[in-house]
């Protein structure tokens, strides 16, 4: 079987994703700053923030239970584990039993659920509000993502992401079938929602009326907050990597170190392209009212459903 991914490679890819996660956020923030004619912080700023947070002490609400302390670790664990399912440098099914795309979505949903539970547990008003909003948006986002995965999975006959990417091969846009265009459109609509960006959420704000994700992190501090922030960086790069694995073939499946390096380079290029897209969307649109979000996601849902219909019928 071509391009099988042994355990070492999967672990390497997972580490790579986690390490590169903050860089993607930094790059998006830098691009946003340049688009707004600001100098902006360097692309390495998220790393500095993380190291600062991990060195600080923890303050915890009196009302928080013991579960609250373990929430950040659980969230980061679930998100990082989700990273293991995404092919990064090489396509192809893993050489050992590993979950598929549904497992990945489930882990991300678990991380989201735990974040909301943590926010409610601390007993802060903003946390509860953020959690309720996040849980309103989540059931609208996740089915669309699932539908996009299914619409490509039907063609390949598997839901394993590595095998999906391998099935798509290294051919570019020319080999796209009709359903892929609609699926990709749905994915593009979905990316800002999944990564917590404008027009669905605003990652930069701490105004109570506009917070979704940030509202849930307010009660965390020190290393706990660092874990939560790291988890959201990782979640972002995992989602972007899923998009690129589903719609753009993973780099050439060469053997040895050279193949891995070429694959990593191709991966970086694809991630950069999608990061530029996110930065452009974020700079050119206003945040939607919360009650408008279902309509925005409805467009994605219809696109994904039509893609599925095109595949089946």
């Amino acid at each position, binding site marked *: 079987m071509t391009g099988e991914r042994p355990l070492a490679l999967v672990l390497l890819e997972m580490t790579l994703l986690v390490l590169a996660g903050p860089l993607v956020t930094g790059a998006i923030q830098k691009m946003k700053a340049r688009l707004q004619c600001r100098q902006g912080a360097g692309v390495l700023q998220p790393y500095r923030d993380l190291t600062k947070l991990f060195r600080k002490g923890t303050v915890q609400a009196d009302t928080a239970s013991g579960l609250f302390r373990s929430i950040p670790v659980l969230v980061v664990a679930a998100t990082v584990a989700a990273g293991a399912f995404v092919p990064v440098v090489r396509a192809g099914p893993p050489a050992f039993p590993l979950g598929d795309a549904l497992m990945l979505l489930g882990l991300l949903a678990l991380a989201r659920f735990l974040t909301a539970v943590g926010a409610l547990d601390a007993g802060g008003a903003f946390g509860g509000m953020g959690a309720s909003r996040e849980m309103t948006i989540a059931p609208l986002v996740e089915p669309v993502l699932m539908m996009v995965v299914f619409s490509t999975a039907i063609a390949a006959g598997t839901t394993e992401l590595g095998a999906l990417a391998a099935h798509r091969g290294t051919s570019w846009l020319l080999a*796209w*079938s*009709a*359903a892929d*265009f*609609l699926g990709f*459109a749905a994915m593009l609509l979905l990316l800002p929602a999944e990564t917590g960006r404008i027009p669905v959420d605003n990652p930069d704000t701490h105004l109570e009326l506009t917070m979704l994700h940030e509202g849930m992190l307010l009660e965390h501090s020190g290393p706990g907050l660092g874990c939560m922030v790291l988890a959201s960086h990782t979640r972002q790069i995992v989602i972007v990597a899923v998009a690129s694995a589903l719609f753009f073939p993973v780099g050439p499946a060469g053997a040895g170190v050279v193949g891995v390096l070429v694959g990593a380079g191709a991966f970086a290029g694809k991630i950069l392209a999608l990061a530029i897209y996110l930065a452009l969307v974020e700079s050119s649109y206003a945040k939607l009212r919360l009650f*408008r979000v*279902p*309509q925005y996601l*409805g*467009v994605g*849902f*219809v*696109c994904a*459903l*039509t*893609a599925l*219909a*095109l595949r089946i*019928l």
Partner: protein
Amino acid sequence: MSEEALHAVIDDLGALLLFTMILIVAAGQIYRAIYAVSAQSLLIALAAAVLATATGNTDLWVIAGVTLAVKAVALPWVLHWIVQRMDIRREIEPVIPIAATLALSVVIVVASFQLTTSLGPVRQAIAGNALPVGISLTLTGVLVMATRKTALTQMVGLFASENGIFFTAMAVTQGMPLIIEIGVILDVILAALVMTILVLRVRSTVDADVADLDRLRG
């Protein structure tokens, strides 16, 4: 161009046409709907050009050019002009929520794909998915017309619906006689002119939109 490549390209264009149609249905602002219908006409012109290269029918090149000039540029420009002239800042006024319209449009798309599979041999003779895509465009255009209160959005729906008919006709016949195509396009231009004048006159004399004209008072 080979038969398979033609089918693939028409399929892809069909998917993009459906995407623009979804954008028209979902548009919350009239400008977005106008841009979407313009993009849709551009894709129709592209489809005509593709069919022209595939079949060697030179009439289709003329059709592609006329579609591009009239439906992708001139008509959206007219709509834009009316919007500015009437100084509409309002958003689109749907009769039923836009989310419900979106759900209905999915039903339409799925139904037209499902129903055309029963046509078997007819569908085989037509390039790609052109028949179900055309039918769903036409019906969704009608849906847009039926579920919007303002005359301008109804015009957008009409143009989208017309695009669907045009796309189907082109793919089914591999190029109708030039005179018929020109006639259809002239029809659209005339309809647009009449509707434009009517909308502006109604607005200037009674300051009402079509939704207010449903009752006759003696």
